[in-house]
Each structure stands twice: as structure tokens, then as C-alpha cells.
């Protein structure tokens, strides 16, 4: 099981990095989203894996999944949602102003 999760993190990360290195805003944002998934799962996994043991207290149940990483990931998901919305909006604003959604700045050399 562990290797499945670890490799999923690895594959999400690799895909995320590849897309982040693209030249247009849209795929880069998708790449960031994939990286976000990867890191959320990674952070989640820092509490180790537990199947069928949600941290909802029940009488007579002793074993629970680690709730803390779950809370942290929840916070991280929310924050990255806000960030994604913002970067989409700024990217859109840049596109509407200049008619290109390239990430790289062509005018830099001139400045």
C-alpha cells in the first residue's frame, strides 16, 4: 500500500513539475494543481496510512487515523484553492490586457 501512495505522490509531482515548466499560463496552473495534490497527499501521508479508521471518536474504538495531518491538509486545500483562484484571475487579467497567455516575459531583455 505504501508504495502505491508514495508512487502516486511521485507521479503527481513529476507530472506537476513537467506542466509547471510549460510556456502558457493554463498548463502551468494545471501543473501547480497537480503539485498541490501531490503535496497534500504527502502531508496527509505524514500521519501514515490507516484504512477504515476515520478519526471520529466511537465508543470502544481504539485505533484512529492521525487527525492532525488531515486538519493540516484541509487547511492547505482551502488555501491553495484561494491561491488558484487568484492566479487564474491574474493570469486572465494579463491575457485580456496583452492577448497572450505566455508565462515568460518577452519584454524583459529590453528593460
Amino acid at each position: 500500500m505504501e508504495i502505491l501512495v508514495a508512487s502516486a505522490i511521485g507521479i503527481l509531482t513529476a507530472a506537476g513539475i513537467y506542466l509547471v515548466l510549460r510556456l502558457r499560463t493554463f498548463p502551468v496552473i494545471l501543473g501547480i494543481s497537480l503539485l498541490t495534490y501531490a503535496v497534500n497527499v504527502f502531508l496527509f501521508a505524514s500521519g501514515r496510512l490507516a484504512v477504515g479508521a476515520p478519526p471520529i471518536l466511537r465508543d470502544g474504538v481504539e485505533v484512529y487515523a492521525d487527525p492532525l495531518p488531515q486538519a493540516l491538509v484541509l487547511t492547505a486545500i482551502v488555501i491553495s484553492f484561494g491561491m488558484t483562484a487568484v492566479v487564474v484571475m491574474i493570469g486572465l487579467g494579463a491575457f485580456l490586457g496583452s492577448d497572450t497567455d505566455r508565462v515568460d516575459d518577452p519584454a524583459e531583455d529590453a528593460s
Partner: protein
Amino acid sequence: MSLATDILNWVLIATFIVVAFSQIMAMLRLVKGPTVGDRILALDTMVVNALGIIVLLGMWYGIGIYFEVTLLVAMLGFVSTVAYAKFVLRGDVIE
């Protein structure tokens, strides 16, 4: 009773496998397309199947608390299907 429970467990596992297999087939359709409609359809199906998997997990672990998740998946899957479709139809999802 224990026989019945055993059978139930076996059937549960078999159902898991079937639903998982259905997911993979839906995924194939999603990748294959060829029309946008097919892809949205495949996504819709996968959401519903995922819901099935969660229901099965709830049965397997005997924990009722996955209900909220299931309910949410049912609601939101619909919304996202409509959103994708509206995008293809109109470009603007909210207009």
C-alpha cells in the same frame, strides 16, 4: 449466519472489483472520446461509480459516516457535469 456473512464479504469484494473495472472502462472512454459529449459522459459515469465505491467501502468497514461524502459526491458530480456541458454549449458557464 457466518456463511451468509462470508458470502456477503465475497460478493462485496467481487462488486468492488466490478465497480473498479467499470471505472477503468469509463476512463478508457474518456480518453478515447471521440466527442466532447463522450468525455463528459464518461466523467459523469466515473463520479457515479466513485460514489458506488464509497458506499461499498462504508459497507466493508461497517462505518456509516461515509454517507455525507456520498451525498456530496452525488450533488457535486451533477453540478460539474452541467458546468462542463454548459461550457461546451455556451462558452460561459454562468451567464
